[in-house]
């Protein structure tokens, strides 16, 4: 439900091996597919240029039902922020039931939901953020959404089992939140407001946090938690302020287990699951193993949902295309494979297909810890010159998404046009765009490599697309003198696998962009957990520190340029392409918009309407 710090884990938690494997295995169809440039829009309707939601002119809810399926996994419960329940499958449903301060636009931009409220940084250093909830905002049971809900939201990410506020986010949390204790670590004092029912509150950060905009989004109903813990809302607020464990323990007990739906098909008691979003659970709307239906929230204060009912069917991904053709599903996000597009086109005009690039991007990383590429820039350059990036994109990606391009950056995506052009203009001169075997041979000799130097390209197998990529690299780079070895293995990323033991020269995998600004620090800075290759560069480290401790967007952009340039010059690795995404919907539906963000196509489901 929430899009926040742990959001990068969504893809991982939900899709298993997905994050690091490409999307060619059946298990991987539920990557947050996304896109911003509509490569194909058969209807020819004008695509909004604003990446945030645009006004569609809906004033009342029309009767009707729209079916969508994210996959086979059933709904796990109202609280989607537990490690057990935090998954794409659950988020596509729960996100419709909660509104919050922000959401991601189609290109990953952070958008404020003005109907819900607003927020702004009243001071940048020290960082102070003021949040204002709309006066009209109420839970579906009529209780106003207030500071109390957000205080509880903070408490679930700050209080430890010892009844203290987290010092460094490493303690055992009292509330079993998937986000851990980071919020408590950064804001030990918690949000401040005048009273429990205040609509305005302020977050005072202990130290500057670059991704502050993602920290506070939607909240759970504190009045329900208070009720279940046997106290009034005011008493709960006081208990949180005073860390009264006699109240917080039963509250946490309920928060951790009371909102789990452990028996499929049995909806929770409506009185404990009020919603703040456009949709709410429909009575008797959950049939175990089959479907779950949401119905319009009649108490919603803002723009009403365009269509009354939204049905999620629990069906395997490979059944979706035929189900769409038969009208059993109205919107699908099929696996983005070369076969899917002709299948969809064959159906004809009753179905509209949208394709584009997603926030997941594929890359080749060098091993700096050992092997031929460590401490040998010329060797890395020789390899970079012979990797046929354009050919890989043309052969493997363009058939799915016509707009696919070679990716020349790591922290910005090609479809974030303005930023991307500005960053790449300064950081990369285009020297690896085309294969240059002469340069490669020259560098090969300069590096002092022997003819037939073995290069093991490791990835998580089986993965046909990656196998094809390695084959393309082999046919090009073997001419230079390398001996490319396809080291794809099911255990590549597992504990004790090749990645851990260092038995690789090149690692081929994908990162899922999360919309966070500073998450790349874990990948590129010295000794960070995701810096698998053991890369270390002082300039990069320093730039990341500057970036992460600032909330100024111009500073972010400036530092990103420095980082990207240094990563290109020293060749951390070679970015290849952003994964393609495919969405198809019944042509009679309007306002279905592709998004690059990980919320998936349902991000604006409340705007979907059937053409009359």
């Amino acid at each position, binding site marked *: 439900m929430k899009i926040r*710090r*742990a959001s*990068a*884990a969504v893809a*991982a*938690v*939900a*899709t*298993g*091996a997905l*994050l*690091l494997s490409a999307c060619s295995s059946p298990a991987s169809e539920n990557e947050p597919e996304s896109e911003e440039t509509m490569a194909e829009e058969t209807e020819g309707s004008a695509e909004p240029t604003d990446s945030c939601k645009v006004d569609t002119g809906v004033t009342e809810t029309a009767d009707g*039902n729209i*079916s969508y399926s994210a996959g*086979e996994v*059933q709904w*796990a*419960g109202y609280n989607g922020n537990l*490690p*057990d*329940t935090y*998954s794409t499958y659950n988020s596509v449903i729960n996100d419709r039931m909660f509104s919050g301060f922000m959401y991601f636009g189609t290109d990953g931009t952070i958008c404020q939901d003005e109907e819900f409220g607003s927020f702004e940084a009243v001071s940048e250093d020290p960082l102070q953020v003021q949040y204002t909830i709309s006066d009209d905002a109420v839970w579906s049971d009529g209780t106003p959404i207030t500071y109390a809900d957000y205080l509880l939201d903070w408490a679930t990410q700050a209080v430890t089992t010892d009844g203290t506020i987290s010092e460094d*986010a490493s303690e055992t*949390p009292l509330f079993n939140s*998937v986000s*851990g*204790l980071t919020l408590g670590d950064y804001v030990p004092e918690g949000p401040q407001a005048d009273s429990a029912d205040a609509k305005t509150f302020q977050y005072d950060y202990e130290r500057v946090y670059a991704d502050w905009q993602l920290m506070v989004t939607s909240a759970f109903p504190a009045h329900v938690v208070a009720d279940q813990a046997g106290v009034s809302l005011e008493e709960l607020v006081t208990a949180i302020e005073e860390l009264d464990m006699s109240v917080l323990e039963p509250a946490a007990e309920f928060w951790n287990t009371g909102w*789990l*739906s*452990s*028996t499929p*098909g049995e909806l929770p008691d409506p009185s404990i699951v009020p919603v703040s979003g456009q949709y709410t659970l429909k009575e008797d*709307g959950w*049939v175990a*193993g*089959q*479907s779950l*239906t949401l119905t319009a929230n009649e108490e919603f204060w803002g723009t009403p949902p365009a269509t009354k*009912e939204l*049905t999620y*069917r*629990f*069906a*395997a991904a*490979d*059944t979706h295309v*035929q*189900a769409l*053709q*038969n*009208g*059993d599903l109205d919107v699908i996000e099929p696996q983005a494979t070369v076969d899917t597009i002709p299948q969809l086109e064959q159906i004809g005009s009753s179905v509209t297909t949208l394709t584009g690039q997603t926030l997941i991007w594929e890359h080749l990383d060098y091993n700096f810890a050992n092997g031929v590429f460590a401490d040998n820039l010329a060797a890395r350059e020789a390899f970079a010159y012979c990797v046929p990036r354009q050919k890989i994109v043309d052969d493997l990606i363009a058939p799915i998404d016509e707009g696919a391009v070679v990716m020349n950056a790591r922290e910005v995506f090609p479809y974030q046009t303005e930023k991307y052009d500005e960053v790449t203009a300064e950081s990369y001169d285009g020297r690896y765009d085309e294969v240059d075997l002469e340069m490669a041979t020259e560098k090969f000799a300069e590096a002092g490599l022997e003819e037939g130097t073995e290069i093991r390209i490791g990835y998580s197998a089986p993965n046909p697309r990656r196998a094809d990529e390695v084959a393309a690299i082999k046919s090009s780079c073997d001419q230079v003198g390398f001996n490319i070895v396809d080291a794809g293995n099911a255990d590549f*990323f*597992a*504990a004790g696998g090749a990645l851990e033991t260092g038995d690789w020269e090149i690692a081929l995998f994908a990162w899922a962009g999360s919309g966070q600004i500073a*998450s790349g620090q*874990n*990948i590129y800075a010295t000794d960070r*957990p*995701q810096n698998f290759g053991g890369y270390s560069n002082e300039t990069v480290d320093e730039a990341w520190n500057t970036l992460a401790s600032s909330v100024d967007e111009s500073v972010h952009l400036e530092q990103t340029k420095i980082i990207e340039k240094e990563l290109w010059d020293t060749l951390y690795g070679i970015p290849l392409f952003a994964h393609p995404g495919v969405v198809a919907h019944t042509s009679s539906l309007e306002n279905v918009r592709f998004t690059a963000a990980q919320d998936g196509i349902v991000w604006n489901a409340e705007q979907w309407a059937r053409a009359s």
Partner: protein
Amino acid sequence: MLKFILRRLGISFLVLWAASLLMYVLTINAGDPLADLRESNAENRDQLMALRVDQMGLDLPWYERYWDWLTGVAGCFTGSCDLGTTVNGANVLDLTAQSASSTLRLVTAATLLAIVVGIAAGIISAIRQYSGFDYSVTFLAFLFFSLPVFWAAVLLKEYGAIRFNDWIASGDMEPPMILGIALVVGVVIAAVVGGTWRRKIYTGAGTFAFVAVVLWVLNILDWYRNPFFGTAMVLLSSLGAAVLVTAIIAGLGNRRVLYAALTTAVVGTISYFVFAGPLLEPSSWWVLIGLFVLAVLVSVGIGAAWGGYARKQAMLISAITGVLTSLTIVFDILVGHWAGFLELKSRPISTIGSETPNFTGDFWESVLDSGMQLILPTIVLTLISVASYSRYTRSSMLEVMNQDYVRTARSKGLSERAVITKHAFRNALIPITTIVAFDFAGLIGGAVITESVFGWKGMGAMFREGLDRVDPDPVMAFFLVTGTAAILMNMLADIAYAYLDPRIRR
């Protein structure tokens, strides 16, 4: 017999226990339950991992984890069943109950249909050995046996669902379609009936003409969208069924049996009127089940009253006629609700799911809805089982037909019908029993792919998801159900042996 069953149960229990131990160890070593978290770049990844380790008991040695699971299961004997929870926090006991009921719904019809069709096809092809029909059945059996479920399902969805739905929107049969269907039916009937070429051609042509005319008339009446059947047709069909059943099992010469069957058909049709109220708007399935039991009891009673010297046979045949009459009545009711159902759901067959979400129809319309959803997966499952049944029945029947006692029966002047149904068929059934029992147990766990392609959440899905996530609890629950089913079915087969073959009883 009791001692035999108890001993079998005891041994089975030990086998189940040993197998569960093996299964558990294999499952927890089948992969890395933390794989998804390992690749996560969340800041609190280590905490999430520690939590999962704690939740699943990954830090415990395998025997402790197994013991925890076993004590939970042992609770089932004292009324506090605990089959554990899945990684997502779902209760495995509830999940298993739901999955098992969904799978049972899926495989029961398929198994019954496969038994009837498979054995019938097997017997006929044995009787008509080396005829065109025999070769066709053999060819189709091998074709179906090697059918990839995935591919067959996709084809079925294309033609059985998408194209059918497109067609029913108008419900208009084009002449080529009518002629095509009539031709196929004509050829099949001619081949089954057999005889000289002349006779084949006459039956074939007759059937062809009959089917073509019927389809044409139905088309004119817009029957496919607004069908009707009517009480007269119910009566006619049940009488036809009565005659047919008698002819096959007892022979039409046995008048007492024939009259018993005919009486049953008439009484059945009359009771349709008597019970019209509860039948058309039943308050629950129990009403229907109760009426069905009543129908069977009354039929048996009629058989007993008419029976005389052939009492046992008359009771059996009346009971079968009673069941068939009941089915005809249900068919009539369903036909009557078809038009209303089409209004609620303009594309009657969905490609996924076991029912339409938020369906608002009345009882019989809901039955139609879930019934339509059963058709495609049932066809797939039936095709596969039919293939093996027909082959086994054919060979077993051929073997029996060549035995001396069959020749003796023929030479003492018994009719061919009596030889086949009374002397040959019953003995040929013995080996089939084993296969049917095993097959049913296998189907419960083996419909994994069918379930997945048709969007049914059954035992297969539970097993697969559990194994994917290296989550032992759902896998073990799957194992418990399928393992127990295999043992029970196996035992049923043994008991059925004793019934079919008196030699075993001694």
